[in-house]
């Protein structure tokens, strides 16, 4: 427990100190890199909520990541062009306000997750993996061929959306926003993992018969977890879109789902801070290996393989040992 606590603190500390250092030596790109790690971490935390706590192996979380991104893109696009998103039956206008966009991204992602979850949760195991993948693939092909928002070319939003009192185009200020959101999401997930819901969800993952025998329905627990999971990943998608000031169907691709899953597994499945460690490690690998060789994917593959085969439980499993019961 103590080891894990120190690891968490160190992780958050480094994630804060590194960009501040980069800011002091005027290396804005490194700040952006740290922001990218944080946004990926949030996406991973979202997936971990379903995968780690609920045992729902979703290979379709790109659906929520992409939806969050497109919420940002579509709203900002209409705000830029002064056209309504929808004229009928009620008029909806675009917006360039980050908090509004986040709320809509969270709400729509949760809604999509309820829809996908309600259908997918009829299956389990590999079938669940594949049906979630199928939903994401459908959205991927749909956005590719949907010309209104750029199709495969995607959509550029030239200026980041606004946040009251901050200049979001300044890398360190945008970083601060993302860091704050990371802390809020971590706090929520940490609380939820120890909450009545967390206890029941974990029990359902371990033994569905047991949770039914105490009078609770696994399906409702799973669906709620899946909705929360989708909402968090959707929020990450909206942040990612603002980070790049750009959206594209790539956000919906199965490689995106795979990468989000890698953050979770690298860090440690079911650990609250696992995806943070996983995302940071992944960004570090991508950044350093990319400079080594044109064929850097080989090294990345070898490292991932090593983690799965020899470091069970990911980084957290390696450093902090077996998970201790929450109490």
């Amino acid at each position, binding site marked *: 427990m103590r080891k894990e606590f120190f690891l968490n603190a160190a992780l958050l500390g480094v994630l804060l100190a590194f960009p501040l250092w980069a800011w002091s030596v005027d290396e804005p790109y490194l700040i952006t890199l740290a922001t990218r790690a944080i946004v990926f971490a949030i996406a991973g935390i979202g997936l971990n909520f379903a995968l780690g706590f609920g045992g729902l192996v979703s290979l379709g979380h790109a659906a929520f990541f992409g939806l969050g991104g497109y919420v940002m893109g579509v709203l900002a696009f209409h705000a830029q062009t002064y056209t309504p998103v929808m004229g009928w039956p009620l008029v909806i206008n675009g917006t360039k306000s980050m908090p509004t966009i986040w709320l809509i991204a969270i709400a729509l992602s949760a809604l999509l997750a309820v829809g996908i979850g309600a259908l997918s949760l009829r299956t389990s195991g590999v079938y669940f993996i594949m049906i979630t993948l199928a939903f994401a693939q459908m959205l991927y092909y749909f956005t590719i061929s949907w010309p209104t928002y750029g199709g495969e070319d995607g959509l550029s939003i030239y200026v980041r959306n606004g946040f009251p009192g901050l200049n979001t185009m300044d890398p360190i200020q945008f970083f601060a926003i993302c860091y704050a959101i990371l802390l809020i999401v971590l706090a929520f997930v940490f609380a939820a993992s120890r*909450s009545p819901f967390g*206890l029941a969800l974990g029990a359902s993952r371990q033994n569905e018969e047991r949770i039914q025998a105490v009078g609770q329905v696994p399906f409702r*627990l799973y669906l709620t977890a899946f909705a929360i999971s989708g909402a968090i990943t959707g929020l990450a998608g909206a942040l990612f879109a603002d980070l790049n000031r750009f959206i594209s169907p790539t956000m919906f691709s199965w490689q995106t789902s795979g990468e989000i899953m890698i953050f979770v597994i690298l860090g440690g499945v079911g650990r609250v801070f696992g995806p943070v460690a996983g995302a940071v490690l992944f960004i570090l690998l991508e950044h350093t290996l990319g400079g080594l060789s044109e064929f850097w994917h080989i090294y990345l593959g070898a490292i991932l393989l090593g983690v799965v085969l020899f470091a069970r439980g990911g980084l957290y499993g390696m450093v902090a040992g077996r998970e201790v019961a929450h109490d």
Partner: protein
Amino acid sequence: MTEPILDIRGISKSFGALRASNNINIDLRAGEIHALIGPNGAGKSTLIKQIAGGLRPDTGSVHFDGQDITALSTAARARLGMGRTFQISSLAMEYTVLQNAVLGALGHRGDVFRFFRPVMKDAGLLATARASLEQVGLEEFHDARVSELSHGQRRQLEVAVALTLSPKVFLMDEPMAGLGAEGSHRLMGFLDQLRHKAPILLVEHDMDAVFTLADRISVLVYGGIIATGPVEDIRGNPIVQSAYLGEETAA
């Protein structure tokens, strides 16, 4: 005789050509232990599943506390007050003993969809959980993981979790299985007291336990109840002896 709390009326269930339950009537009244015995493959587990939920009978109905619950899910039946223990331990293996008990208390209280308060600091749930664990004698093992428990301790924990639900009836599927002599003896003493809290439908192979504990016994053979009655009647019943007890003692 009081009105039965649990009343199974004429249920039948077939799997293809196999009749697993054949027009079964069985009931459970306040304060009693009603034992269900029968050779392997007689259809005891199928019957328990139809009573506890998870398997719908083809015909017939299950009544509980004056209500027809045939169409209800397992979870809904549990909420109405059916406390169940499983033949093969069915616990959250990664959790501690206390967490499993708290889970039961939480499931019974019903406010599962809360995301912010630490559940393991909830005084009400902890009190219920601790009391149940104490009743089965697991108070020393609060912080042990279930995966570290012995077989007998897991059986005790099953019962404790059922207790946290403050059930109106208990359905116990072979609670003595795999317990040593001492463990069985302790559990028998405990069940003897427990019947006054809520009646028990007891599926059990241990004949000593059954004849010591039960108020009534039903004998299930090939999916049908061949006899129901007080212990002495069953012990002396020639049909039962030939169909079941004889076979059992010979085995």
